[in-house]
C-alpha cells in the first residue's frame, strides 16, 4: 500500500484498529475512550467497531485503570490503558513503577506485563501546570519500562504497532501539540526499527539530539541555521528506552558539537542523561561543552505567551546553535 497523507491522531487510531484486528487479545481501556471517543479523539469510532468489551470506558480511577491493565497483561491480554494526561501519572506511579515495571524481574521471569500505557503530554493548549508537563524522565528512571515518544505521523503508526508487539510494558507518550499535524503514513514502511534513532536531517557542524515535538522545532531551527551557513544534523531518538545511543554518539563524533533539546524542564531531565552519555563517550571529539536547551525550571503557566516562552522554540534553538558554532551572540545577550 502506498503512503497516504494523514494526521498524527488518525495514524494512532489506524495503528489501534490494525492491531486490534490482527490480535484479539488487544483491548483498550481508559477514561472516555469509548462513547466520547477519547479526550483528543484518538479512539473515536473504535467502540462501534470493536464493542464494549474491547473498548472499555472506565470510571475516573487512574490507579485502578493501570492496575487492571497490569492484571490483564499478566493473564494473556494485551491492554492499551489510556492515561488521559501524563500529568495524572502521579496517581498511578505505584502500578507503573512497582507493579508493571517490576513484575517480570521480581518473579524471576515468570510473569510478563505486555501492556501499553498510552498518554500524552506537552504544552500548546494552555493547559497550565497540571495538563502540560513533559514527565518522561519519571519513567526512564525506572528499569523495566520501555518509553517511546513519536514525533512523526509515520512513527505514530509504526511505533504504536511495535509497542503492541513488545513483551514488556511500554509508556507511549504522545504530544498534544502534534495530534493535528499532517504527514505521510506508509503502513508498510517504518521510519526505523524499534529502539533505533532516525537522522531526520544530515549536517556536519552540530548534532541536535531530540525527540517528540522538539524534533519539528529543531528541524525548523536547522533551516534557519542553514541560512547562516551552519549545517545541523537532527537526530530523533524516538525511543528513550531502549535507547540507541550509538547513532547520536557517531553523529557527535562527526560534528564535534552537540545540543540536546527537550521540552521537559532542564533539571534532572532526560536531556541530562543524553548529555552525560555524549560527554562520557565523545569527550575527545567535542569542540565545545554539550549544550542542553530545555524547558524553564518552572511549572507551565497558562497564559499563551508565558506558556510559549517556557519551552524551547525554533528561534531559541537556532540562536543557541549559532552561538555555539559561530559565536554569534543571541538576541537576549546582544
Amino acid at each position, binding site marked *: 500500500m502506498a503512503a497516504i497523507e494523514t494526521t498524527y491522531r488518525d495514524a494512532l487510531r489506524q495503528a489501534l484498529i490494525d492491531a486490534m484486528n490482527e490480535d484479539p487479545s488487544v483491548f483498550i481501556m481508559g477514561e472516555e475512550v469509548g462513547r466520547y471517543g477519547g479526550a483528543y479523539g484518538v479512539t473515536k469510532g473504535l467502540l462501534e467497531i470493536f464493542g464494549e468489551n474491547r473498548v472499555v470506558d472506565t470510571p475516573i480511577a487512574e490507579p485502578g485503570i493501570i492496575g487492571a491493565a497490569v492484571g490483564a497483561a499478566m493473564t494473556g*491480554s494485551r491492554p492499551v490503558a489510556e492515561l488521559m494526561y501524563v500529568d495524572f501519572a502521579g496517581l498511578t506511579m505505584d*502500578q507503573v513503577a512497582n507493579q508493571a515495571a517490576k513484575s*517480570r524481574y521480581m*518473579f524471576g521471569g*515468570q510473569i510478563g506485563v505486555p501492556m501499553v500505557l498510552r498518554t500524552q503530554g506537552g504544552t500548546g493548549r494552555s493547559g497550565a501546570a497540571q495538563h502540560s508537563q513533559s514527565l518522561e524522565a519519571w519513567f526512564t528512571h525506572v528499569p523495566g519500562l520501555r518509553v517511546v515518544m513519536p514525533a512523526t505521523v509515520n512513527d505514530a503508526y509504526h511505533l504504536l504497532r511495535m509497542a503492541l508487539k513488545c513483551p*514488556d510494558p511500554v509508556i507511549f507518550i504522545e504530544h498534544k501539540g502534534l495530534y493535528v499535524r499532517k504527514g505521510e503514513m506508509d503502513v508498510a514502511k517504518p521510519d526505523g526499527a524499534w529502539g533505533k534513532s532516525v537522522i531526520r536531517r544530515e549536517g556536519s557542524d552540530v548534532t541536535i539530539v531530540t525527540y517528540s515535538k522538539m524534533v519539528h522545532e529543531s528541524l525548523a531551527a536547522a533551516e534557519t541555521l542553514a541560512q547562516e551557513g551552519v549545517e545541523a544534523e537532527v537526530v530523533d531518538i524516538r525511543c528513550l528506552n531502549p535507547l540507541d545511543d550509538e547513532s547520536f554518539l557517531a553523529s557527535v563524533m562527526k560534528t564535534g558539537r552537540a545540543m540536546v533539546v527537550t521540552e521537559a524542564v532542564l533539571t534532572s531531565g532526560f536531556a541530562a542523561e543524553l548529555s552525560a552519555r555524549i560527554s562520557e563517550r565523545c569527550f575527545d571529539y567535542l569542540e565545545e561543552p554539550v549544550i542542553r536547551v530545555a524547558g524553564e525550571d518552572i511549572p507551565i503557566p497558562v497564559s499563551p505567551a508565558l506558556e510559549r516562552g517556557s519551552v524551547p522554540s525554533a528561534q531559541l534553538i537556532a540562536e543557541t546553535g549559532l552561538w555555539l558554532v559561530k559565536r554569534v551572540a543571541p538576541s537576549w545577550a546582544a
Partner: protein
Amino acid sequence: MATGGNKLLLDLYRTMRRIRTFEERVNELFVRGETAGSMLHMSIGEEAISGVCETMEQGDSFTTHHRGHGIFIARGADPNRMMSEIAGKADGYCSGKGGSMHIADMGLGALGANAIVGGGIPHVVGAGMSYRNRGLKNVSVAFFGDGASQQGILYEAMNMAALWKLPVVFCCINNQYGMGTRIDRAAANTNLHERAIACGLNGVAVDGGDVEEVHEASERIMTAARNGRPGFITLTCYRFYGHARLDKSPYRDEAEEAEGRKRDALVNARARLIDRKTADAASLDALDEAAAEEMNAAVAHAIAALPPDQDSMFRDVYAEGELRPRPLREHLSMILGEAR
C-alpha cells in the same frame, strides 16, 4: 459442617498444619542466618485461608500480599522452591530475585506476592477482564490484609469489578493489625465487608477460627463470582506473632495475645476431627510428623541450594531476546577503555 464433610476437614487440617510448620521452619531458617534478610511475614493464625483456597479451581488466578506463604502452600506450591526463594537461592521460585515477599508461580495461577500494601489488588480486575473477553469460567482472587483495606486502590478495584460484573473475589485476611496499628485505630467501621456491600459486591465476614465456616461461605462467594457476581470475604483472625521477624509486638499486651490466639483454626479442626471420630490423635500426630518431615526437607534443600550467579542480575528486567541493561563495568570500559 463443611459441604465436603469430614474428609474435607481432614484435608484442610493437613493443609493448615503444613502451613504452620512451614512458617515455623522459615523462622528456624532465619535463626540459622540462612534467610535473605529479615523481611519475613508469618501467617501463623491465618491458616483458615485454606478454606478459601480449597474452593478455587484449576486455571483460577490470585494475587497475594507480603504475608502470603500460607496461601501459596494451600494452592499447591512446592515448599522446597518457596524455602529456596526465601533463602535467596538460584532454584527458588523467582531465581533468588523476589524472596519471601514476592513468591510467584504462574503454573498455579499465582500472579505474584506484593510488598506494596494493596498493590496486587487491582490486578485481579484485569485478570477478570481477560477471562470474560476469552469466555473462560475462571475466577481471580485478591488476598490482602486489613491494612490494605484502608488503601484507595481497593475501592477503585471493587467498583470496577462490581460495575463490570467480573469473576473476581476480594479476600481480606483481617488479622487485626496493619503492622503495629490495630484495626480499630485505622478504621471507624471495622466491619470491612460492609464497605464491599456498599460497592455492590457480595460481602461476608467469616470466622477465621473455623475453617469449615470459611470453606462454606467461600464456596458460595466463589460460585457467584464465577457467574459474574463478584464478592468479598473478610476472614477474621488474629496475627499470632509480630509484623515481621524482628517485631516483638510491644504495642500490644500479653492478655490480648492470649485471647487472640484462642482463635486457632488448626487447633479447632483437630479437636473437631477427634470429636467426630474422623481421626484419632495418633493418626493426626502422624500427619503432623509428615508435615514436619516435609518442611525439614525444605529447609535442608534451601540451605544446600546454590546462590544465583552474578550475571543473572541482568536477566528478566526485560523479556528474553530484548535489549538488556548495560552492566556498569561495560559502561565504564566504553568510556575509559576504548577512547582513552
